[in-house]
C-alpha cells in the first residue's frame, strides 16, 4: 500500500494519463504479431513439407523461444545482439531499445504461430486435398485455395489466445525502459505513491483491450466459419445468460462444429 488513502477519482485520472502510452503497447503488439505471422509461416513450412535440414533448424528455433522466458529473451536481444554485431564490426548500440523489443516479441510469437499453423494445416481433411489434386490443381493451388482458408478458420481461436497473451507480455518491456503502459504506470506510481489506483487503472486498461480483441476475433471466427452449419445456427440464436457470460470471459471461444484444434 502507498502512504495515501485509496481514492477512486485517481483511478480515473491515471486511466486518462495512461492512454497516450497505449500507442506504444499497441505498436509492439501489432508489429510483432505481423512479423510473427510471416516468421511463423516460414518456420512452419519446412516442418510441414519435411525439408531435411531446415526442418531441424525450425525445430530448434521453436524449442528455444517456447522454452525460455520472454524476459530473458528480451535481455539477451538487447544486451547480446550489439555484442554479436560488434564481432563483425557493426555498431548497433545506438538503435533504440524499442526495435529490439519488437524483434524479441516477434520471434517469440513466431515460434507459437508456427506451431499453430502446423496444427491447423494438419487439421484440414486430407481428402479435400486429394480432390483438388484429382481435378488437376497444382500443389500451390491446392494449398492456397483449399487448405489455407480452412486452416485460417481453424486457427482463429488459438491465434486470439496468442495475440492476447502477447498483449499482456508487453508489460515486461518496461524492464528495458520502454514507456509503454506498464512502464508509464510504474513511473506514475513511483512519483505519486498511489500504487493501488495506478495499477487498478492499468488492469482496467489491459482488460478493455483484451475484451475488444476477443470481440474482434469472435467476429472473424463467425465469418470464417459461416460454411459450417452449426456455426451459422449459433449466430442466429445467440446464447444468453450464464453461458454467454463465460464466453466473454474465456480466452477461447466455444468452437461450434469442428473439433480440430491444437
Amino acid at each position, binding site marked *: 500500500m502507498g502512504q495515501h488513502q485509496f481514492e477512486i477519482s485517481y483511478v480515473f485520472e491515471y486511466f486518462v494519463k495512461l492512454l497516450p502510452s497505449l500507442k506504444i503497447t499497441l505498436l509492439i503488439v501489432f508489429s510483432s504479431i505481423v512479423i510473427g505471422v510471416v516468421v511463423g509461416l516460414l518456420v512452419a513450412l519446412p516442418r510441414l513439407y519435411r525439408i531435411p535440414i531446415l526442418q531441424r533448424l525450425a525445430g530448434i528455433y521453436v524449442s528455444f523461444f517456447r522454452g525460455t522466458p520472454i524476459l530473458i529473451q528480451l535481455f539477451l536481444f538487447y544486451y547480446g545482439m550489439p555484442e554479436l554485431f560488434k564481432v563483425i564490426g557493426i555498431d548497433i548500440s545506438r538503435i533504440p531499445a524499442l526495435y529490439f523489443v519488437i524483434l524479441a516479441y516477434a520471434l517469440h510469437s513466431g515460434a507459437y504461430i508456427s506451431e499453430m499453423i502446423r496444427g491447423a494445416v494438419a487439421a484440414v481433411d486430407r481428402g479435400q486435398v486429394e*480432390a483438388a489434386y484429382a481435378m488437376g*490443381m*497444382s500443389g500451390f493451388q491446392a494449398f492456397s485455395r483449399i487448405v489455407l482458408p480452412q486452416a485460417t478458420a481453424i486457427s482463429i481461436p488459438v491465434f486470439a489466445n496468442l495475440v492476447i497473451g502477447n498483449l499482456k507480455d508487453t508489460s515486461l518491456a518496461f524492464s528495458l525502459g520502454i514507456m509503454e503502459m506498464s512502464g508509464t504506470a510504474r513511473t506514475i506510481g513511483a512519483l505519486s505513491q498511489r500504487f493501488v489506483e495506478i495499477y487498478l487503472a492499468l488492469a482496467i486498461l489491459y482488460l478493455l483491450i483484451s475484451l475488444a480483441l476477443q470481440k474482434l476475433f469472435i467476429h472473424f471466427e463467425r465469418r470464417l466459419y459461416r*460454411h459450417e452449419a*452449426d456455426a451459422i445456427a449459433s449466430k442466429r440464436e445467440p446464447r444468453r445468460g450464464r453461458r454467454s457470460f463465460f464466453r466473454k470471459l474465456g480466452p477461447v471461444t466455444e468452437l461450434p462444429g469442428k473439433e480440430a484444434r491444437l
Partner: protein
Amino acid sequence: MIKLTQIKKSFGRHQVLKGIDLTVEKGQVVAILGPSGSGKTTLLRCMNYLERPSEGEITIDEFTLNCRRPSKSDIHELRKKSAMVFQQYNLFRHKTALENVMEGLVIVQKVPKEQARVRSIELLEKVGLGSKLDSYPSQLSGGQQQRVGIARALALNPKVILFDEPTSSLDPELVGEVLSVIRKIAKEGITMIIVTHEMGFAQEVAGHVIFIDDGVIVERGTPNELFGSPKEERTKQFLKRFTPDGVYSI
C-alpha cells in the same frame, strides 16, 4: 482410350497390385468388383496417380505415363484427363455447392467465371440440386453431397470419371438418388470406371465387369457372363455371398 499395362503397387512388403492389364474403350462403363483388400480402390487411385504405382504404364486419351520416373507436369497432365468421385465425397467444405462445381473450371481450366457459373448451374440442375446452389456441404445430406461431387466431376468434362465406391458411406435410403444420377450420366456415353459393392447396380449399368482378388484380375466379361455363369472358382465364391438364391442367374 484407357490402357493400363502391368500396373504393380506395393505398400512396404505387401504387394497390393500384381501386374494389372486393363483396356477400356471410349464410352464404356466398367464396374470393378472384389472383396475388401483386393486392391480395387488402389487400382482406381493409381489411374489418376493419387496412389503411386511401383511399376507400369498408364495411358489415357493418347497420353502415356510411365510410372518409373514421371515428372510433375506429366502427373498433372494425366490428372487433367480424369475426374474422381470419392467415397467420402471430399467436397471443399468452405465453398458452396456452386463454388465446388465451378472451382475446377475456373482454376484449372481457366474458363471465364460467368461461363463457368452457367455451366455449373446447368450441371447442378441435372443432378437435381438446382435449389441448393448456395448451400455449403455441411447443410447438405450425404446423398446431396455426393451428387454435388458428381456434378463437380462432370464439370471438368473429363475423358473418364473414376468412381470410388460412391455409395458406400451413404445411408441406405440415400443410395438410390445417387445411383439414379450415375445411371443417367452412364446413358450419355461418358466413359466411367466404377468401384462398387452394389452388385445389382453394377449388373444393370456396367457394360463390362471386372472381378479383382488378391491384386490380380481373376475374371472379366459382360455382366451376363460374369454374374450368370462365372468361370473361376473365386468369382463363384464371391458372388455366392450376394446371390444366395441365384437372383442374378439370367
